[in-house]
């Protein structure tokens, strides 16, 4: 499983939904699981984004699918960064 960091910004539509039904967040997480990935951590943040999600996902294609699926609803704008735990990254740099 690879790790991805998904930065999400809500659209106006998304903000409305969140206010009306906060539990919508959990439903989305379950849908993500149904598509083969898993949300391991999630924070609401202040600043340029609304949420930061850390996902475990088998590959780029799965995450691309999730991204399109969620983005197509018009409630959220997503930016996804493929990520590597820093220890693994340091090992890689050392081992080159």
């Amino acid at each position: 499983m690879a790790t991805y960091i998904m930065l999400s910004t809500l659209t106006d539509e998304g903000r409305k939904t969140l206010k009306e039904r906060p539990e919508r967040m959990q439903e989305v997480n379950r849908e993500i699981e149904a598509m083969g990935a898993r949300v391991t951590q999630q924070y609401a943040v202040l600043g340029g984004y609304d949420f930061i999600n850390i996902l475990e996902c088998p590959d780029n294609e799965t995450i691309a699918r999730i991204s399109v699926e969620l983005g197509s609803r018009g409630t959220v704008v997503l930016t996804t960064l493929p990520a590597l735990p820093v220890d693994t990254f340091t090992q890689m740099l050392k081992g080159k």
Partner: protein
Amino acid sequence: MGTYVVFTKLTPQGRKNLHADPTRLQAVTKQAEQLGAKVVQQYATVGQYDFVTMIEAEDNATVQLIGAEISGLGTMKLTTFPAIKMDRFQQLLKMEPYRTEPHMWQTSLWARAVRRIGRPWTTTRYVKQYCKPLTIEGRENLANHKGGAIVIANHSSHFDSPVVYSTLPGSIRNKLMMAAAADKFYASRKKRVWWPSLFQNAFPVHRGGGVKQLEYPVSKLKSGWSILIYPEGGRSKTGQFARFKAGPAIMAMQANVPVIPIYMEGLRDIMPKGQREPRPAAAHARIGKPISLEGVASVSEATSMLENAMRELAGLPPRRTSAAAAAAPAEVPAMASAGGGAS
């Protein structure tokens, strides 16, 4: 303690350094930890940032200091976002506006009269109907008590307050006020926010709202009223004691009144947290000796005195001493919020 997400972009200089010595990363992490942050998670990412790091730090100022120190090295640019854990954020979303001002008329003569007349209907009948039976132990401990006091009790049910009420002798009961969680009992959407003030003699406590909350109850204590407060700050789901908040001890010390501990059993069978309809069950209340906090050096010491008195009433061993607690920093300090209250 807050959570922050830090996005890092390396500068050309930073890239060179990392290439020459990959362990630089750990060195920077260590430096941040020395400045007071705890690195929870760290990822190297592909895309607009090079690293994403979750840190925990005391406050915004600490994070700003760390940011200044580390970006001062000239090897990276940082973008930091304060973050809120998702379950907490969900709670915040559901929170509604609520009243924090007490109804000043609640201790006036007419309100006391209304309460007195209404008592069989608002309180006594419920206790009679659902506490089968209600047994009370230790009433003799209050034989010599006079004047105002803080009454503390373990909290597991909305049914606790009527039972405490019925347990206390008339001299305290007729001048008893109740600390009620503002977010629960004084939500603005409720049509009758005056109801608990009038019939339960409750006043709103803004949970986590700090020491200023205590001015009103302290002034009432000084004029001879007693205050019922649940020092755990909310209802327990499991029946286990949560750490006591500092509010009750602060109030007792400021107003110079004793603290009366009451331990109650069986209320969870009548109406546990999350259940709306009570069902009949046996209830037992044990009243402890009034505790005087006169001459106690600090609020935290007084709080742990109260905590241990309550544990003794419940037949539990005392909580570890403060020295042992200091050795185990995982324990959340009771000072986190000064309030206390009820939910």
